[in-house]
């Protein structure tokens, strides 16, 4: 394609090729649970980016929720269970 050739002449200076980016976007698409099974013809690169952002945000939310639960568990179990953990950890510290 002539457009690719002219673009590659420009991007040779910056060493970033279209193929590289297409490759990275398709790899990212494989990771996303929403888009994994769609064939790449029907999914635009912008859609992949949007799903990536949404997925990262949902993962952040999950980690935040898990952090809350873990902190509650560690704070509320001041009895034998915390002593249990402490003894386990102190065995190899």
């Amino acid at each position: 394609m002539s457009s690719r050739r002219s673009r590659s002449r420009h991007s040779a200076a910056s060493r970033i090729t279209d193929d590289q980016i297409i490759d990275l976007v398709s790899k990212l698409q494989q990771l996303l649970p929403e888009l994994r099974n769609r064939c790449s013809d029907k999914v635009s690169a912008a859609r992949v980016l949007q799903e990536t952002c949404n997925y990262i945000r949902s993962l952040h939310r999950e980690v935040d929720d898990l952090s809350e639960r873990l902190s509650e568990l560690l704070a509320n179990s001041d009895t034998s269970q915390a002593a249990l953990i402490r003894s386990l950890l102190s065995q190899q510290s």
Partner: protein
Amino acid sequence: MASTAVSNPAVNNSDRSLLRRKKKKKIPNQNQNLRNQAQAAQTEWKSDTQQQAYSSKLLQALRRVRITGGAAPKGGRAVRDAADRVLAVAAKGRTRWSRAILTNRIKLKFMKNSASHKRQRVTVTTGNSRWQKKPRVSILRLKTKNLPAFQRKARVLGRLVPGCRKQPLPVILEEATDYIAALEMQVRAMTALTQLLSGASSSSSSSSASSSSSSSVNALNQLGSSRHPPAS
């Protein structure tokens, strides 16, 4: 490859042309090496040993957070920070996001600048309001690369992945790939840890289900004893 060209000084012109050709070929070879490294890192985030190592280190870090709970921010935020820090350490400095997390920790510690936390949260909420618009382009050819919608989404993604605010597009994409794999492992490990701890606490309080408590004790034991040798 360049060394073989140098060791044959017989024909200079062909050597120079060989060097020129080999210099051009170096770039795709480097890319191939980087891709192999990236794939190896991807599978590593999914491995059980990585998850075990992360879980045990997280337990240690959480115990430290509990004991010195006076000055540090309490509750979920402290756990989240510890979890992110241990995750970044588990990345072994291979990626930008991990280095950014660790340097941010140090900066915050020494400068005590909590304003940066607030700034981060503000950018996330403004990013949310942008997703109301639907993307208008639906072709995968990379003429979309220069469209403002695409660029905007790329910038938002750059802000989400730590350490990638001013990076060019391929860097952001690579970092996001590794970051997602690492986050998934973090979620798996913390979920397992939560189940273990909630199982242990509920059974110890009831003290009737001895089998379940012993199984969670065994699991905790495994986490506590599975120590990897210090990174060389």
